[in-house]
């Protein structure tokens, strides 16, 4: 590796970071050379994002050294990092909705004139040039509140290019919300930057999307550095092995891969949920599908395609503007989540800690939250019965905790997800919508969640599984429906569904609107 004598652009040694006793990074050390594209790979929770945040000044390391071109640095804020030529584009970018594109690109580093005031002419001219450079058809004076998720990404990229980023650029999962052509545009820009001498660190779940782009690959697993190797020397299987620490067939223990067989896993029961021509103004429209007892329907699509919004509308969070929903054959006029829960439909949200749980409450209180009105009498709570129910589900789901009074915030991601599941199972629903249920949890719990979902379907539940994880979609779904840009662009049986078909359907951005 040290065939080039040059000082590494970035040299990390012994980076340690822990959050409340959980070690996110356990002494990570590796180098990034000047002018290379470096892939940082690893599973969810491997510590990639934390590492980026530490180097770019958003968080500080508990221990360890960061050297930039040989010089010891410790950025306290992203602004400091930017001044040193280090910029990061984080996952799930956040912008200022009240301000326009150019202001978002240049916030804090606006070009100034001689008097120290903002030079608007120059700012908008440069913004236009930057966006043109990125092939992004965006008006610098457009308000950010009105942009699509893909466009927001490009504003972020423009921001990274605007100033700084001449030494080191981090891109944290930048492609999750992008169509292939947008991804291609991004790659072009990244290559150009590399040729100018900037080092780019590309964070991703997988290697093949970066094929032909990256020079070097670093793999993290469970907060530890596993390997740094030349990309040419690695193939996908080898990378997966490094990422997971075991081979693929060990990944889903006890679960046969039925994706090839084409037969449904459990007998198809009566129709539980039917959605006809459902629409929410400005978000999605024309969504129609049905869900039968005993089956798992997977809903695939790019991040930001509107899948969560569809699920939340069915759950009553934002009542639809058009269309109708039938539960067990009866039309429902959707008003609130409470109503849908009472009708036997539950929704497990993607944002587990922000929406699925109340982290400061105990396991017990979280599990019985939707149920306590039914357990109690005359509005008075019934602690004994609550405890009995919570204990049952905590045991069944093998929630690892000291006791039921423990605050959910102190549990691991997987156990927190089990608490959310326990909460819904205690309600005994007929229809269950799972929104990215395995996002950000460890492999073992992931397999367990899959087993639970399958077992529930076998008991007659109808399950809608929203997932961006393609193997999960193919493995779990008895049928697959695909959403792109708020519209249904595909519906496949298990036998028909292939990775390619789903991908094609998922990237039909904006096509239906023209038709």
């Amino acid at each position, binding site marked *: 590796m040290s065939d080039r004598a040059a000082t590494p652009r970035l040299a990390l040694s012994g980076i340690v970071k822990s959050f409340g006793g959980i070690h996110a990074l356990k002494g990570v050390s590796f180098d990034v050379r000047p002018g290379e594209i470096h892939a940082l790979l690893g599973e969810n929770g491997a510590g990639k994002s934390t590492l980026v945040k530490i180097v770019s000044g958003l968080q500080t390391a508990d221990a360890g050294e960061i050297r930039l071109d040989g010089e010891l640095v410790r950025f306290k804020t992203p602004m400091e990092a930017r001044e040193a030529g280090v910029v990061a584009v984080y996952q799930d970018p956040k912008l200022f909705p009240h301000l326009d594109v150019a202001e978002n690109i240049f916030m804090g580093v606006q070009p100034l004139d001689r008097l120290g005031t903002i030079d608007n002419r120059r700012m908008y001219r440069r913004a236009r040039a930057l966006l043109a450079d990125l092939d992004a058809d965006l008006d610098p004076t457009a308000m950010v509140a009105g942009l699509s998720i893909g466009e927001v990404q490009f504003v972020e990229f423009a921001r990274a290019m605007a100033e700084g980023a001449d030494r080191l650029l981090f891109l944290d999962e930048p492609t999750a919300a992008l169509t292939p052509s947008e991804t291609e545009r991004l790659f072009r820009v990244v290559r150009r930057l590399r040729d100018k001498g900037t080092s780019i660190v590309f964070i991703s779940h997988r290697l093949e999307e970066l094929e032909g782009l990256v020079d070097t690959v670093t793999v993290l697993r469970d907060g530890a550095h596993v390997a740094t190797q030349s990309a040419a020397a690695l193939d996908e299987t080898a990378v997966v092995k490094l990422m997971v620490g075991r081979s693929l067939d060990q990944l889903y223990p006890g679960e046969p891969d039925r994706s090839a067989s084409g037969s449904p896993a459990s007998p198809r029961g009566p129709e539980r949920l039917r959605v006809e021509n459902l629409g929410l103004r400005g978000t999605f429209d024309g969504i129609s599908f049905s869900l039968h007892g005993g089956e798992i329907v997977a809903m695939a699509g790019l991040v930001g395609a509107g899948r969560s919004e569809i699920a939340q509308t069915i*759950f009553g*969070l934002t009542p639809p503007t058009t269309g109708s929903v039938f539960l067990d054959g009866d039309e429902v006029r959707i008003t*609130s*989540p*409470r109503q849908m*829960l*009472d009708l036997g439909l539950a*929704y497990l*949200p993607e944002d587990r800690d*922000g*929406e*699925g*749980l*109340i*982290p*400061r*409450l*105990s396991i017990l*209180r*979280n599990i019985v*939250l*939707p149920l*306590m*009105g039914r357990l*109690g009498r005359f*509005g*008075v*709570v019934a602690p004994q019965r609550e405890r009995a129910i919570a204990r049952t589900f905590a045991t069944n789901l093998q929630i690892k905790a000291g*006791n039921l*009074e*423990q*605050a959910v915030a*102190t549990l691991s991601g997987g156990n927190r997800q089990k608490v959310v599941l326990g*909460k819904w199972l205690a309600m005994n629903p007929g229809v269950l919508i799972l929104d990215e249920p395995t996002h950000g949890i460890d492999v073992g719990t992931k397999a367990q969640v899959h087993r639970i979902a399958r077992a529930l379907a076998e008991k007659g539940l109808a399950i809608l599984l929203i997932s961006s994880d393609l193997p999960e979609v193919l493995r779990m779904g008895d049928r697959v429906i695909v959403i792109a840009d708020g519209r249904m662009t595909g519906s496949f049986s298990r036998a028909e569904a292939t990775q390619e078909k789903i991908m094609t359907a998922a990237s039909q951005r904006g096509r239906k609107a023209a038709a």
Partner: protein
Amino acid sequence: MTAAAAPRAFVWELTLAVLILLAAIWASLTSPFYLSFDQITFSLQQSVAVVGLIALGLVAVVVVGEIDISLPAILALGNILFMHLAVMNCPIWLAVPLVLVVCALAGLFNGLLVVAFGLPSLAVTLGAMGAYRALALLLAGQEGFADFPADYLWLGSSSVADVLPASLVLVALAALLFGFVMHGTVLGRCFFACGLNARAARLSGVRVRLVKTTAFTIGGVMAGLASLVYIGQFQSARADNASDILLFVVTAVVLGGVDIFGGRGNVVGVLLSLLLLGTLKNGMGLANVAGSVQTLVIGTLLIVSVLIAQGGSWTGAFRRLRIRAASKP
């Protein structure tokens, strides 16, 4: 509520108890008149009965994560209504529910505005405060009224069994009821859930809008109840009644350990903080401390108590101040 939080909450209450004791010792050292049962109960009745009822109402609102600063204005509105009802010779058993309903509606109106438009409750209730206060002025006219029949005045001026002021008994009963509602009923649990994370609560089937509106309505009812005590205590009704108690009420709630961001707090803490504030006020009154200085002391207490609550503990607050001082360029 959680295992980790329990000892800390306990420490807070213990600290309050110690402070009450210290305040009482200070008061008895300052004035020979302090240490007498009648003096203490009379003073407490004067200083904390009205405030206590409103503070309990505010606890409900703050626990769901909102704030209602129009409660004193609702009290004034209640006073003026009592006045008109007294003039009309309306019997007390009819007057009380009438006034309570109007005050509840005032609270409900605040809640509906906050919930229906997703507005910040401070802005809404600030406007409502002006509107209710002025409404009271419109209804009252220029001069005050001091000619209430005896049964209107009973609650605020009489004693139960000639020992305990009736208004303090009412505060105690209300606190008991509140304690039960907050900690032993589905509604109370929903209050806390909304205050901790309204979105997650909604996704867990809690009717967040209904719960928040209920909290605002409870606040209004408590302000109405406080107005009945008020007219008994001061035997007068004017539209500018209680225009200066907001600071006292908010301080009582925050000093009582209720998290101003919602989701945490208990009635015991609020009762203790009322007792502390009452004792301090009593002592300062006996020591002839000027009114503006008393306000200054309470304002300082308010800020210090939130600083500590924010920092988690005394040491935490100091540590954070030090770190901040160090990190400031």
